[in-house]
């Protein structure tokens, strides 16, 4: 349904996304994890045709077999809402403060599906009901500031679902919400995807959420897709050194607070930080921070190596070379 072939996005000398290959089929639930600046959001914006004007795009992006790589805004407007929709990280700022939420959610229905206001109203009531907002007729007349963060995120989900998209991209939908509400929102997304037969791309750095919501996972670092495979397998037995580091950085609540010498135990971290776009190493993006680096890692990009039948990771170590 959605296909990326060697899809790259760059800004001047910096590369935000490099040789991304991805296929999303109907009903897929795909997680994308990685640190800030790993290219997750850029990937999502590209799937929406909303890459910044300054971006240089190469490779190929197709939707339903149609080449959308350099499609114009008009063509994308046809795709958005109907084929692909997106919800955003910040429910607090993603709703126009001056519009009643009913008007906001009705808008794509009127513009896209050509419904009358009365018809759109009926659809919005059903949508708000579906996303679990109590008393939809009253809520429709409210302004965003009258709703809580979780409720606003539900409104945004209703807005995204308005025109029955085949793919819903959720870009860190729970980052701004407290843990309890976040859990309910992720469960809601899974339920909606399941009921509607809708594909879901779930972008997050919450590994617990991704385990809960998705079947497959892509791990990104510095604009590269470094590892992919079924979520449970990747999380249980990571193949790429970055994925191992990422999983190793999860706090272990059962570990004692102090080590054998009585020193306060520190949380495990990956050494260093993600370099800025323009300073990423030419080869493997993770070189320089990698614990098992080879001498040519910094200069040669690692191709995808199969880990097993349905898993792959982009690491030279998996290419049959001994460390």
């Amino acid at each position, binding site marked *: 349904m959605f296909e990326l072939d060697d899809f790259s996005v760059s800004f001047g000398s910096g590369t935000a996304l490099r040789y991304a290959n991805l296929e999303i089929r109907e009903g897929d639930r795909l997680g994308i994890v990685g640190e800030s600046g790993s290219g997750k959001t850029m990937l999502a914006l590209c799937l929406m045709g909303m890459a910044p004007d300054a971006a240089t795009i190469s490779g190929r992006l197709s939707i339903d077999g149609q080449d959308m790589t350099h499609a114009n805004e008009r063509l994308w*407007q046809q795709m958005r809402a*109907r084929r692909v*929709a997106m919800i955003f990280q910040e429910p607090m700022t993603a709703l126009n403060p001056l519009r009643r939420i009913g008007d906001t959610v009705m808008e794509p229905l009127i513009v896209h599906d050509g419904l009358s206001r009365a018809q759109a109203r009926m659809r919005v009531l059903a949508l708000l009901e579906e996303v679990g907002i109590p008393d939809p007729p009253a809520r429709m007349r409210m302004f965003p500031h009258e709703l809580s963060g979780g409720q606003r995120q539900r409104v945004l989900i209703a807005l995204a679902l308005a025109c029955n998209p085949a793919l819903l991209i959720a870009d860190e939908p729970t980052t701004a919400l407290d843990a309890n509400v976040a859990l309910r929102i992720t469960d809601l997304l899974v339920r909606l995807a399941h009921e509607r037969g809708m594909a879901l791309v779930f972008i997050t750095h919450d590994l617990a959420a991704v385990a809960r919501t998705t079947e497959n996972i892509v791990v990104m670092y510095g604009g590269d897709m470094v590892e992919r495979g079924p979520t449970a397998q990747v999380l249980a037995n990571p193949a790429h050194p970055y994925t191992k580091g990422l999983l190793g950085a999860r706090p272990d609540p059962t570990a004692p607070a102090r080590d054998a010498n009585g020193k306060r135990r520190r949380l495990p971290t990956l050494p260093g930080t993600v370099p800025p776009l323009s300073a990423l190493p030419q080869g493997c993006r993770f070189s320089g921070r990698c614990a098992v680096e080879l001498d040519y890692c910094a200069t040669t990009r690692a191709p995808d190596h199969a880990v097993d039948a349905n898993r792959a990771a982009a690491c030279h170590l998996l290419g049959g070379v001994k460390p």
Partner: protein
Amino acid sequence: MNRRLPVNFIIGAVLVALVVGTAALSLVWTPHDATQLTISNKFAAPSSTHWLGTDQLGRDVLSQLMAGARNSMAVALVAVLLGGSVGVALGLLASAIGGWVEDGVMRLADLGFAFPALLFAIMLAAVFGPSLTNAVLAIAFINIPVFARVTRGAANQVWTYDYVLASRAAGLNRFAISRDHILPNIAAAIIVQATIEFAVAILAEAALSYLGLGAQPPASSWGRILSEAQTLMYIAPQLAIYPGLCIVVAVVGFGLLGDGLRDMSDPRLSRER
């Protein structure tokens, strides 16, 4: 709302209310007919029948000033609405489309800024003859780049907001977004600018009428009263002072009101107060 209103807003609002109230009153009532000549009663001192006296042709000064207020308000209103609408539309367009359209509109605005308004009015008058309509058009024209620039600046900021991103993701086109999401959220900035431009328009109308390029006799206009009184400065200085004062009150009033509105719409300023 127990927030204190800014002082400039209060003073501005009082002065504007005075001017607008006078202009409105002149529609239904003036002490005398503003164009009524009574040569036998020229240069009359203030009295109970002529509160501010009469001029060199025996016309009632107060009635003329009231009619002038009406003229000023009407000209400023039409000019600002006209120039503002075109300017706002151009600014929204530039911001929505971006690229060479935005550059083009902004360079045209620069050109408009560089072109002296008075010169443009004189040009219009030279081609089409001096008239109030041409004065209005000239003032409207100089307002276009001002509004285009303010609108585009404010709109560009709103375009980066998440809710605009969300409505793009919902498949709305740029014009629907401009109309439903951008415009309402920049309305405050536009209203502030319009109030300030109102003051500029009043001044411009007075200047044009003073030069004989605006209101034509027998219509009353502060600028024209001022130019007629100029030759009589040594005989009856009050005839020049009254319209001058009116212009000052109106311009300062709208200027302060605009400043006050801006202070109120800027949360950073209201917190400091």
